[in-house]
């Protein structure tokens, strides 16, 4: 019978990957993304010719308070742990027009230049030597009012980008010679928090947000891909099965191969088509770029474990969705019935905060032992690096057993349901099919 499973799988695979829809979806996606990026670049670089940021702002000070020093004032305090991601983002955006200008501007900050009066400052603004002009009035100390002249109306204008640097400049000027410079720095940037959390062995270790994002990138990516693949493949599967049911090919097929081999073969074939699609996207450099930008850590063990949960979850949900779908009398019913299971797959996402905050807590553990929620839950727990090895193994064993049992019962429902036309079975009837050999 294994031979027939393979024959079914091969047919499902070839009839899927040689469909125009699939080919266009698979090769069109990266091309589309490429074209989209190209278009943004084109528009950006054209716009950049006219709106090249100067990185400079003029200050006209009537209050006598502002002390313009050589050098730049940064736009924001970027935590060390996020610096890598920001750098990568700015590298990626390099040359991409206004976006690059804004990011570069945020990182470089603003250089302030003193002007004696509004006229000369505004003349410099017109000549595009500077990007903005700030006028500090005489009564600034009482009112706090500052007037800003902006070269552009854009929400990403230099005038707006320079506000944070201006704030720093004013604080420094106001406190000059009154408070020690170190204290001023702390007033401007009072906290750079290191978060400590217990690891698997109960030791306190540094655990930053960026660190969590880095390690969860792969598992969360897998979880998202899992959901996308399950629904795409289940859609294709149900479409194929409903076609076979409607044009009665199923009678010929079931006279040749038992329902379990048929169901399993179909899942393998469609699963292989899904993995091929993933492989093509990976090789077309779509995913690596995303991973690189996010600064995600790629641990081989995490990838292997996620892949194992991915395949098992695909088989479990594929089986459930197809068997449930086969009860429907037409393609529309079948889709609706089948998609009922999607709730189970997405459920752990609702608990994402609970699972990530306490990866070995009761909720996370329970969700790991229920085969329906185990895949996504375990992917998240593996990502935190705190799931004990024995629990990972146990979850894999339970999931494998669930796949075997589900396949057995689903095949019975599948077989009987496929031979019924026009009549919707009752729930007790479906349970009776499951009991029948």
């Amino acid at each position, binding site marked *: *019978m294994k031979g027939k499973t393979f*024959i079914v799988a091969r047919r499902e695979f070839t009839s899927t990957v040689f469909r125009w829809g699939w080919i266009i979806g698979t090769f069109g996606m990266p091309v589309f993304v490429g074209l989209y990026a190209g278009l943004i670049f084109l528009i950006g670089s054209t716009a950049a010719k006219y709106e090249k940021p100067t990185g400079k702002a003029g200050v006209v000070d009537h209050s006598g308070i502002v002390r313009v020093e050589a050098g730049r004032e940064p736009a924001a305090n970027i935590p060390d742990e996020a610096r890598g991601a920001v750098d990568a983002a700015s590298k990626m955006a390099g040359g991409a027009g206004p976006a690059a200008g804004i990011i570069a501007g945020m990182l470089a900050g603003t250089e302030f230049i003193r002007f004696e009066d509004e006229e000369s400052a505004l003349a410099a603004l017109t000549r595009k030597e500077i990007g903005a002009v700030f006028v500090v009035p005489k009564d600034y100390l009482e009112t706090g009012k500052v007037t800003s002249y902006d070269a552009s109306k854009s929400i990403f204008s230099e005038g707006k980008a320079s506000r944070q640097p201006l704030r720093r400049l004013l604080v420094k000027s106001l406190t000059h010679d009154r408070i020690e410079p170190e204290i001023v720095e702390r007033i401007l940037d009072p906290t750079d928090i290191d978060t400590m959390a217990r690891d698997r062995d109960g030791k306190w270790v540094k655990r930053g947000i960026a660190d969590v994002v880095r390690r969860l990138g792969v598992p969360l990516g897998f979880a998202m891909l899992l959901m996308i693949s399950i629904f795409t493949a289940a859609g294709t599967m149900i479409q194929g099965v409903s*076609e076979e049911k409607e*044009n009665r090919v199923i009678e010929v097929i079931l*006279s040749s191969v038992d329902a379990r081999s048929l169901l399993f073969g179909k899942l393998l074939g469609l699963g292989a088509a899904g993995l091929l699609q993933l492989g093509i996207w990976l090789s077309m450099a779509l995913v690596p770029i995303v991973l690189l930008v996010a600064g995600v850590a790629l641990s081989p063990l995490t990838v292997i474990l996620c892949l194992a949960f991915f395949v098992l979850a695909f088989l479990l949900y594929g089986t459930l969705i197809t068997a449930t779908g086969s009860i429907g009398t037409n393609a529309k019913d079948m889709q609706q019935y089948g998609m009922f299971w999607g709730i189970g797959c997405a459920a752990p996402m609702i608990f994402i905060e609970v699972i990530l905050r306490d990866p070995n807590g009761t909720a996370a553990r329970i969700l790991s032992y229920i085969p329906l929620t185990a895949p996504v839950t375990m992917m998240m727990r593996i990502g935190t690096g705190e799931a004990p090895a024995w629990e990972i193994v146990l979850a894999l064993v339970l999931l494998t057993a669930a796949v075997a049992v589900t396949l057995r019962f689903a095949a019975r429902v599948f077989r*009987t349901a496929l*031979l019924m036309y026009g009549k919707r079975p009752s729930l007790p009837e479906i349970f009776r099919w499951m009991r029948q*050999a």
Partner: protein
Amino acid sequence: MPQLLVDDAVKAYDGKVAVDHVSFEVNGGEVFGLLGPNGAGKSTLIRMTMDILRPDAGRILLDGRPSTNADHDRVGYLPEERGLYRKQKVLDVLDYFGRLKGMRGPDVRQKAQAALDEMGLGEWAKKRVDALSKGMQQKVQIVGTLLHDPDIVILDEPFSGLDPLNTRLVKEMIAGLKRAGKLVVLSTHQMDQVEELCDRIVMIDRGKRVLYGTVREIKKRYAPELRLASGKGNVVVVDGEGDFARIEGVLDARPSGLATALSLAPELTPERFLERALGAGMTISHFEASPTPLEAIFVHVATAPAGAVS
């Protein structure tokens, strides 16, 4: 030991009995008719024979043992409604069906091509199924049924959609299967085909077996009963010189081809009619004592109240 034995098979769906203690046996080299009105339980019986469904009670044995998955490859099944992938090429569909029936290697396609050539569909092999006419699709389905050279062939309405030329082709094919010693189960509503092709028949009505035996036996058994039930006598077909309608005991006369069909009163046997006609000086060039057609028996049995026939 019969090649196929259905022994006291019972199958119910949701409490409704579809097959109710049905038994019959079929041997190789035999064309066996499976008859019954729509919804009688024929499809369920066919599916149980092919091991798609299992009986709730009773046994279905192939060569004296319960069938296994391996027996799938011994059966060729032609479904009542066309079961082909409409958007695929003819040769690809046949290749898939052949491989599902255990055929292996590169010659599956060659065999399929040869079988299509034989059916006169050689040049359609690379065309999509939905480009073919209904009759052509039926022939492709027949090729798919027989490609793997099965021992047991189950044909559900094989003549539907076929023109007279192709009907003859399929009849010759069934005769060929019989000569080759194959077991053929033929399910059809066309009683003339059953009379022409089947050695033995079983008729199912409301899940129960109502007729079982050779076609000759059944006709012999039911002819008197049917005549009584209809209140009519024999029908004879005659050609010759004379006004046959005037013979005593002839109730009705109507043209039948070039000859005339006469309905006789119950007491007038075909032999007595002949005597009277010749005695009256009429000449007869053609005479046929028309026996009760199977169709009349089918209608009689199927319309009888449940349990009235055995």
